[in-house]
């Protein structure tokens, strides 16, 4: 019986199933994109058939997911752990509430202002990141999170103070061009949240593929190295927190339109909310595109599920245990784990990927290569793969 050395074993062609390389811009890629778009539209349409209650839950998931995308930008992609995003969420919510009630704004018109305010506050909060980092920076954001409800109470002329703000349904009537009535507000908010979520997700996806996105990841992974490459780290950090604040502020504005009741005491803008957002981000997968949606779905639906298993304080314990189990078995988050699994079957590569450019030839592994990969190039035909490069669509979830 012959022995096989490690070297020999490494050079042996793999016999397991090889991943398909999908080149961006190829016909196959475009088909996949079309299928995804059709899927999104289909999901949106299915959502409209849900009961008011379920639709409201889905709306809550989408709004939370947008807020988590904002947090993910700062924490997941850039490594700036924020415990104060509840305040940025609150800034947007109160901006919407005050503008509707005191200045008679149409609700949707308040959203750009909530976004701008979130951006401005985010920039201010991001400034300390120039001098301090790590847990010390997190403490600054913690202070913001603690201070926000007190500020709301203090400026009661604007914010309603401890009594809060109640935006009644007659102020939240859908715009006339939608053709929806006051009683169909749930459908309007669902549609608005869905479109908002998709748009925000696409913007963040594009951002993360840009130079700024690469710089953000660099700041997270190796600040010294990225600085030595000429990246303005200070600008990147502050800008990231500004953008993060803008997205979370936008989600806050949507929240105000959805719930209609804003109070510094209800847990909506306290550290409890920050913890909820952080939990959703890590459960879904920090630094992943779909993580915020998956994490928000878990944090909205899991408590309901555990409360059906048992009532009383035990259901809270069950919720906690379930979260621990999820984190234990999927430390990279649900989206991160799904991504790892998906990469065993298919990988998206840029159009200039060597595998996508080479002419089709068969290799020793019946359609695969030495690394066991297949590729689908511009024409959709299988290509002989080249060197296994990094996936351009990688979300960096495998940290």
């Amino acid at each position, binding site marked *: 019986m012959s022995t096989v050395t490690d070297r020999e074993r490494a050079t042996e062609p793999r016999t397991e199933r090889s991943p398909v390389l999908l080149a961006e811009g190829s016909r196959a890629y475009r088909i996949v994109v079309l299928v995804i778009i059709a899927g999104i539209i289909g999901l949106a349409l299915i959502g409209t058939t849900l009961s008011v209650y379920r639709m409201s839950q889905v709306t809550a998931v989408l709004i939370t997911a947008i807020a988590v995308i904002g947090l993910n930008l700062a924490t997941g992609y850039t490594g700036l752990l924020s415990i104060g995003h509840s305040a940025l969420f609150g800034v947007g919510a109160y901006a919407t509430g005050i503008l509707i009630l005191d200045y008679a704004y149409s609700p949707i018109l308040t959203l750009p202002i909530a976004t701008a305010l979130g951006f401005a506050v985010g920039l201010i909060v991001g400034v300390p990141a120039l001098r301090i980092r790590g847990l010390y920076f997190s403490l600054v954001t913690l202070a913001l999170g603690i201070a926000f409800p007190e500020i709301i109470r203090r400026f009661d002329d604007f914010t309603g103070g401890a009594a809060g703000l109640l935006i009644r349904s007659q102020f939240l009537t859908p*715009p006339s061009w939608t053709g929806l009535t006051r009683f169909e507000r749930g459908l309007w908010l669902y549609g608005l949240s869905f479109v908002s979520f998709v*748009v925000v997700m696409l913007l963040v996806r594009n951002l993360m593929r840009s130079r700024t996105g690469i710089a953000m990841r660099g700041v997270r992974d190796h600040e010294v190295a990225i600085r030595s490459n000429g990246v303005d780290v200070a600008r990147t950090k502050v800008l990231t927190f500004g953008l993060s604040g803008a997205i979370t502020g936008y989600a806050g504005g949507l929240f105000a339109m959805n719930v209609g009741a804003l109070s510094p005491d209800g847990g909506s803008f306290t550290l409890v909310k920050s913890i909820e957002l952080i939990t959703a981000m890590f459960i879904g997968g920090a630094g992943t595109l779909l993580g915020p949606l998956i994490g928000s779905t878990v944090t909205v639906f899991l408590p309901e599920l555990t409360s059906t298993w048992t*009532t009383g304080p035990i259901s809270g314990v069950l919720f906690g245990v379930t979260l621990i189990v999820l984190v234990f078995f999927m430390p990279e988050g649900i989206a991160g784990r799904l991504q790892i699994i998906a990469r065993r079957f298919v990988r998206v590569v840029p159009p200039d990927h060597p595998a996508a450019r080479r002419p089709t030839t068969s290799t020793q592994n019946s359609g695969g290569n030495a690394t066991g990969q297949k590729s689908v190039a511009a024409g959709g035909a299988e290509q002989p793969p080249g060197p296994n490069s990094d996936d351009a669509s990688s979300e960096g979830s495998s940290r």
Partner: protein
Amino acid sequence: MRTSKYGVVAVAITLALAGACGTNTGGTTSGSAEDALSSENCADPAAVTEEITDELVVGISAALSGPAAQAIGQVLQGAEARFELANQNGGIDGVEISVIKRDDGFTPERAKTNVQALIDQDQADVLSTLGGGQVDAMSDYQNEQCVPLLNAISSVPKYYDPVQFPWTTQDLPAASIEEAAIARLIEERYPDGVEVAMASNPNESGQAYSEAFEAAIEGTDIKLVKNEPIVDPATTASTLEATGAKVLNIGGIGTDCLSMMNAIGRAGWKPELVIVPSNCTDAKLVFEPAGEAADGVEILRWFKEPILEEYEDDEAVLEYVDAVTAAGADPKSSYVLSGWAMADITVNALEEAAASDDGLSRIGIMKAAQSQDYQAPLFIDGVSFSVDGESDPFGIESFRPYAWNAETKKFDPVGEVISAD
């Protein structure tokens, strides 16, 4: 990145333009409570007048999980025991009551989705909840759908307005009513006037107590020398002690009362009169843990309770004790009693609705709930739950003062019934 920047700007402009197409048609309701209580403004007008004949579903949004679940669970035990007693007595004109609970974890967001589930999925005929934030999150939808939210265990001032919120009622006494009664009590004790210090929680309830007391002493010889928020009880106690006030009025909730009593005890301050609001009524959780510091502290009450010696053998108290004990609840818990009272007032409204021209319909129930004069068996003689539309939206307006005896661990009456009128 440039593309992303433009993308953000484009989205903002699109949203702004879309917003310009919308109109803010908001406004406040005017007219009488009777006008406001009309099926015309409801999402489904026909359902509002339809008589309930098979089963009456009471939907409750409450914290079944989380830190508040233990106390709120006891409230629900009391409420369910009272509904069960009504069923044992033949239901509401033959219609049985069933209770559906949904967990809100004491967060308004979940209360918001719960109210939709209770109305649309569970087909609740009547709703209830606990906490001001919960009512805030639920009120708009249930008013829009015209489903009565009866006797919420809260005391948010705006929901004592049947013109603006015709389908919402609360069963706790309003802060304005309770503080008016406290002002009367102080006037009785100090006819020549007195200096009062106040410690109030910076939350909504505390602010309501604070503002109500200031309004109640206007034109009297009572002088509020200092009103200090309860942020750090020790600091609050020492600040207020320095004023030399003879009376301390604590406008807090539950644990605030305990921490303030402990703080003044540690500071060695002994005001002649210390008053806490009725929500601090629980002997086991608030008064007993404070030990000597709680001795002589006064509270306004309106229930005959098993822990009050004079009512130990009262017929209504015995019936209550039997019913809640059978349900596995602690009859001496003020939370259980609070839930029982909420359900008791609700059952009375349902019975009055069943006997009215509108019958046991949503509109019939709401009309009955807005026009009750109910001397509940468990209420102290001289106290009743009396409401009459917008002219008198406050249910409980009379109280009897009791003082805590730290030695016997019981409340002793220290005066007759005081009316806030």
